[in-house]
């Protein structure tokens, strides 16, 4: 492991100053991904700045029923919060479906969406990877592609984003607050991540030294039902093959679809907001045919990959079935 200096920032401005002024520096939050990358040689910073005391660890009420989640709030504390459990089942299920109890106690809400892909070629420094080492090639192409993208990939990168929480935040229309050397700014969560294009080394739209300080969760109409469904190779403690975050509001709680918000996980370099599926659902009757049409519309541009493991064409029907099942669950009368 390359030697590095370690500083603890006690406020966000200090943290930003320390990292923005040093191209070799990086923020360290929960450490669940970055510390592993230090060991693997995937990350080789010369300076680390611990930011777990630099931003808020509180969840505060916003006007109109929204919530502001400090970047240092731990995943487990967000999932346990009474307000979040009542208002955002989708968000809580995305948190609880991710990692393990120990990791959720460590991971922070600011850091979780910034974790890197679990593409095995990215994590193995003996194989080529354009994301880890620009212009070195892509080990995944023609390799093991079971966990790779079917939407929005580029010739340079096939990786998927691993965060469950990010999928829920994308569907929720959350807002990200960021502090940089030039001051504060806010952006829609759906603009935080970027498709790989010809710069797969850039996961997000953040500049070096920009620190996520908080994430705002907007209030949803009271009649909205939401959930997160994750499909994986084992029942617990595994990354998603595909996942669906969905929130649906029906007219009078049982009629046509007034509003739908959907995001998909495990299918793209970003948490994939399913605008096309939402457009099909809006104003339609919540029937099986509508749900299938929504899935079909979203997957029109799906490009499954070949691979040594048989490739990932299975993801197209798997997304379809998971999305349909999730929408069925949300729109049918639930026994309680």
């Amino acid at each position, binding site marked *: 492991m390359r030697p590095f200096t370690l500083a603890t920032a006690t406020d966000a401005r200090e943290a930003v100053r320390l990292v923005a002024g040093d191209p070799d520096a990086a923020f360290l939050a929960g450490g669940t991904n970055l510390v592993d990358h230090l060991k693997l040689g995937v990350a080789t910073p010369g300076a680390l700045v611990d930011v777990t005391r630099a931003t808020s660890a509180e969840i505060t009420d916003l006007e109109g029923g929204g919530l502001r989640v400090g970047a240092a709030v731990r995943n487990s504390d967000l999932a346990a919060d009474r307000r979040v459990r009542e208002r955002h089942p989708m968000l809580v299920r995305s948190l609880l479906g991710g990692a393990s109890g120990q*990791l959720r106690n460590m991971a922070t809400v600011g850091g979780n969406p910034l974790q890197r892909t679990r593409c095995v070629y990215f994590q193995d420094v003996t194989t080529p990877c354009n994301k880890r080492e620009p212009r070195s090639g892509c080990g995944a192409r023609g390799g093991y592609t079971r966990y790779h993208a079917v939407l929005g990939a580029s010739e340079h990168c096939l990786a998927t984003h691993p965060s469950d929480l990010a999928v829920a935040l994308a569907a929720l229309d959350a807002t990200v607050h960021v502090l940089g050397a030039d001051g504060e700014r806010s952006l829609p969560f759906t603009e935080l991540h970027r498709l790989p294009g010809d710069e797969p080394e850039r996961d997000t739209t953040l500049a070096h030294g920009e620190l996520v300080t908080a994430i705002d969760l907007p209030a949803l109409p009271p009649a909205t039902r939401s959930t997160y469904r994750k499909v994986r190779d084992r029942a617990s403690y595994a990354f998603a093959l595909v996942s669906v975050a969905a929130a649906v509001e029906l007219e009078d709680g049982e009629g046509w679809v007034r509003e739908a918000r959907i995001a998909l996980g495990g299918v793209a370099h970003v948490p994939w907001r399913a605008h096309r599926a939402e457009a099909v659902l809006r104003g339609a009757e919540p029937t099986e045919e509508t749900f299938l049409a929504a899935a079909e519309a979203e997957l029109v541009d799906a490009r499954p990959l070949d691979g040594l493991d048989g490739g990932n064409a299975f993801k197209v029907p798997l997304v379809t079935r998971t999305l349909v099942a999730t929408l069925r669950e949300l729109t049918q009368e639930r026994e309680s």
Partner: protein
Amino acid sequence: MDTAITLGVDGEVYRLTVDTRTTLLDALREQLDVTSPKKGCDHGQCGACTVLVGGRRVLACLVLAGTADGAEVTTAAGLADGDSPHPVQRAFLDNDAFQCGYCTPGQVCSAAGVLDELAAGWPSNVTADLTTEPAASRAEIAERMAGNLCRCGAYVNIVAAVEQAVEQATEQATEQAAEQTAGQARR
């Protein structure tokens, strides 16, 4: 590059100097000779290094020791109250919840964390209604312990042990509450 830290470990206070690259797990095992937390995968995948930091279960292999300055660490070796084992330790013995024992200290610390998380009403991925206080079913326990792997496959008895420990902890809490109420009534 070195950094000086203070760690509270199982009731003892240690002042030590660590390389910034040192994990909490390596600081405990290699520098302080606290060998109860085990190194399994060293990548946050197996749970053998689970300890309690400030009462919460975490993976010591993914914590940089330099960021743990001032932390209160409890390992499986420090859970007992003197000669009286922690309810989780008692339950592991009663249920033969191990074979080789290598993952056991991590399992025990994780289970101690599960007890507190259940008592605090935290939901899990298998909790049907997120707005309720989850009951400690076997499915709940298995899900909550999913971060601790056991290569001997002692899972059936581990779940039984945690179930017993949860029952005992619940009984104790009920008794304590009853005693408190009785005490208040006497006053």
